[in-house]
């Protein structure tokens, strides 16, 4: 069901699926294993949340849809279909909308893949993480390299022409050669899109504890930098565009959904812990799937494990500026974080997200948004970072330099600090 986008605001839609078969030791996402009994009522709650938002934002359409998690492919295709019809019922898809499903290799079968196409998905992003079985074990992944390769092929045969895959580099014990091998196998599969993430050891994860206790060696940052450089070279040779710090795509195959984030455009997230950016506010839902389900008026199955353990999420302090639509979902829904995007925050976030792109922050976009030129606002910072060789500048705008991509935080930090110290009229 596609409608034209005229006179409608089109936004990105994110749907969070907080279930995983097992929890990977490096993962700090809002996702859980062992609460599968919650799935049916959870799907009901998602549909209800979508319905309520659609009422509050009547004339909005979906430019992109992204089901992420967790493991969306872990849900039965029928449930995914229910979610998709609730979504498109409330936020109709614009023509050529990108509709992505995140999938784990182990979940991919011919039959399921057809079900996903049928539910309306036209892009699959597969979490492969590595093509080395030993490293996959270290990462606590449930699949093997061979399985991943098969799964990717199954997707193609089922009719998914737009396929992406994710890898992680800079793993403890990983050698540069292992990484180059993984890259080569990736290219053999000719995905149209590749995400390569440098491993970040997140606080509170089992991996962090292993590293701290010395069970797993501390990954080597310099080696990770070499891996990044190797990837950049290989993918460029193969014709991929390095369009964001961790993302590469064949021309025209960039992730439209993620571009919304990096261009600081509006999106709505549903599901526990999902974040949104609408009406000059950022807001987010409570993280607990159980309390989430309950906040939308559903009963959580009474069962030892599923009881409402933990305390009820607290009501957030609302900024005065909070629009009525958001207030409604705080009062009778799952929203429990609201932050006003003041002009200086908008500036900070536009810079910090935009500088991640190969196109950087474009002069024309900046001027259209803030009514000033980049140099009007950030002359000193731009000069400082040009001198450090971290960025480049031309008539089109500013962007990270070749070397600056590995030191992005130094650049983002400078812009964020500068933007937030500015007093801008609302």
């Amino acid at each position, binding site marked *: 069901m596609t409608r034209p986008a005229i006179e409608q605001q089109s936004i*990105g839609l*994110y749907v969070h699926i907080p279930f995983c078969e097992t929890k990977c030791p490096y993962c700090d996402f809002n996702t859980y294993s062992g609460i599968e009994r919650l799935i049916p009522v959870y799907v009901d709650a998602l549909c209800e949340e979508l319905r309520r938002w659609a009422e509050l934002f009547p004339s909005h359409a979906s430019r992109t849809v992204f089901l992420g998690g967790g493991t969306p492919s872990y849900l039965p295709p029928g449930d995914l279909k229910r979610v998709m019809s609730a979504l498109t019922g409330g936020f109709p898809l614009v023509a050529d909308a990108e509709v992505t499903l995140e999938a784990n290799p182990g979940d991919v079968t011919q039959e399921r893949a057809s079900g996903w196409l049928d539910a309306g998905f036209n892009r699959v992003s597969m979490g492969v993480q590595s093509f080395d079985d030993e490293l996959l074990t270290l990462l606590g992944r449930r699949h093997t390299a061979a399985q991943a390769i098969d799964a990717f092929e199954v997707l193609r045969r089922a009719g998914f022409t737009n396929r992406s895959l994710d890898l992680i580099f800079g793993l403890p014990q990983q050698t540069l050669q292992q990484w180059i091998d993984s890259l080569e196998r990736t290219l053999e599969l000719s995905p149209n899109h590749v995400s390569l*993430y*440098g*491993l*970040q050891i997140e606080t509170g994860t089992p991996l962090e504890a292993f590293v701290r206790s010395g069970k797993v060696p501390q990954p080597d*940052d*310099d080696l*990770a*930098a070499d891996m*990044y450089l190797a990837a950049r070279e290989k993918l460029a040779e193969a014709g991929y565009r390095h369009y964001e*710090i*961790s993302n590469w795509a064949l021309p025209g195959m960039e992730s439209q959904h*993620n571009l*919304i*984030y*990096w261009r600081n455009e509006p*999106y709505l*997230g549903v599901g526990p*812990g*999902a*974040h*949104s*950016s609408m009406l000059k506010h*950022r807001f*987010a839902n409570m993280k607990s799937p159980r309390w989430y389900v309950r906040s939308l008026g559903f009963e959580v199955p009474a069962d030892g494990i599923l009881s409402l353990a933990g305390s009820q999420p607290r009501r957030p302090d609302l900024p005065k500026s909070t629009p009525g639509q958001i207030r409604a979902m705080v009062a009778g829904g799952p929203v429990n974080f609201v*932050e006003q995007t003041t002009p200086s*925050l908008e500036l*900070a*976030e536009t810079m*910090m*997200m935009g500088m*991640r792109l190969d196109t950087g922050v474009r002069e024309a976009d900046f001027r259209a948004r803030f009514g000033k030129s980049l140099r009007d606002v950030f002359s000193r910072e731009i000069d400082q970072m040009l001198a*450090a060789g*971290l960025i480049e500048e031309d008539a089109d705008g500013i962007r990270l330099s070749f070397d600056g*991509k*590995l*030191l*992005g*935080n*130094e650049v*983002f*930090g*400078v812009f*964020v*600090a500068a933007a*937030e110290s500015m007093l801008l009229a609302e």
Partner: protein
Amino acid sequence: MDQSRIRNFCIIAHIDHGKSTLADRLIQETGAVSTRDMTAQHLDTMPLERERGITIKAQAIRLTYKYDDDKSYQLNLIDTPGHVDFAYEVSRSLAACEGALLLVDATQGIQAQTMANIYLALEHDLEIIPVINKIDMPAAEPERVAAELKQAFGFKDAEILFASGKTGAGVHELLETIVHLIPPPKGDPGAPLQAMIFDSKYDQFKGVVAYIRVMNGSLRTDDRVRLMQTKVEPDVLEAGYFSPVMVKSDSLGVGEVGYVATGLKNVRDCRVGDTLTMASNPATKALPGYASQMPMVFTGIYPSEGDEYPALREALSKLQLNDASLVFEPESSAALGFGFRCGFLGLLHMDVIQERLEREYDLELIATAPSVSFDVELTDGTRIHVDNPSKLPEPQRIKTIFEPWVNITILTPSRYIGGIMEMVTLRRGEYVKMEYLQPAQSDNAANASQDARVMLEYNIPLSEILVDFHDTLKSVTSGYASLDYRLIDARASDMVKLDVLVNHEAVDALSLIIHRSYAESQGRQLAAKLKELIPRQMFQVPIQAAIGGKIVARENISAMRKNVLAKCYGGDVSRKRKLLEKQAEGKKRRAKMIGAIEVPQEAFMAVLTLERQQVSRH
């Protein structure tokens, strides 16, 4: 009170041997406070002291004891600071007493502080009652400790008491013995007033409160008194004693111990050791023994954030109101900005003050490595004191550097002698003597506590025990040894200044004055440590150590290669933005800028963890 019914005494004990517990028990036994009102350990009032188990400020408590003959006695228990840093205060407290309980833990035996304090007590001619404490403990070995007391000090079996502050065993007998053995105070009630100040503290409402022992004469509320050293003449706003709460009494008579509220604003006007006399009818002579105390250990104290400088000054001034031995003066460092050079009586005093600044005044501080005060003779014949390494003149202007030496006493089970000798020798210590306090209990003891107990004495430069000596001693002896020290003299030493350069800039706050024999090895270690502690920058940063301008060590901090958030999507924006803010903020707050380099606070502490390496002496 009739002079013959007064007994003034103190308790000499090593830390943790049960002084406070026994004091509580005495208070309880004599009914000074109801059991219900008693908070544990009355004599220690500052929370910090309680935590560290030391007593910084002496106090006195009056107990009323009904002896068997049904007469009442006034017992004044004067609390003495337990630590050598406060040796002068200890000596003044002892001068206020006629007797002392020598308290020794039945599981531990004599320790270094016990030795030091008992010699002090003997110098003051006190009647000493040896008490073996904690006899209720399963590990107690009262006979063994008694043997040690007999051997070390020549006590006789009949003189030694056994008690438990915890259960109260032996406490009654102890009180009787105090009345029996400790002589009543001498002194002439008709003579002009002479009262010795053995402690003073500042009180917000009453001004400086002096703790006094009346030696001759008497005083009353409203008398105008004179401090014979400082010549100040305050009025007695209030007089009284502690029981253990403050109790007013109109007068304090000869032999009595109590307090006088003076209304003075600063303890410097009312120093420990000074004599209080009557302004209208002054004594001709002050009491003997007054000495002003010199700081021995110095360190630069800086606020982590420059704008806390006024708060730091204020906090130091407040602490000084109550602590006449704390000295400070403003100084500035190119690396650390504005701060203060502070002088302390000793290491513990320094620790306590730093901790109080941080805890009670909520300041975040950077302290430079502690230094002693060097006496420097210049080529032009003048002599200067240098307590800040960055102030040491150029080598060509220096003729001789003299550094303070101390005499240390270590008590240890015999098995650790070798380890101790080694650590002391590494630190330029000189052997003085070794004595066996007690033979081994068995030739092949499994447990160090059954070893022979040995007293080792060395002379050693004070600078060598400033930093890690105590901790090293503890680890070398598994915590069995105890240590005490006293200043002896200053000796000519071959000292040099070690400078550290970060990115070719000398960092004044990292300079050290150090003995030539291991300056180079420490320079190398320091450079290597700093390499670990200073975060990578966007360019390579050299770290060098130099002695007299000659580079002796170099390390490079290689340029940072990777610092980027790999993932940043819709759910991350607020959080990641805050992370970046924090990073930018953190850089400002917790680090000091040396040129363009952020040097974290820990780097300034790196000097504290350098190890001495064996060096060949040419």
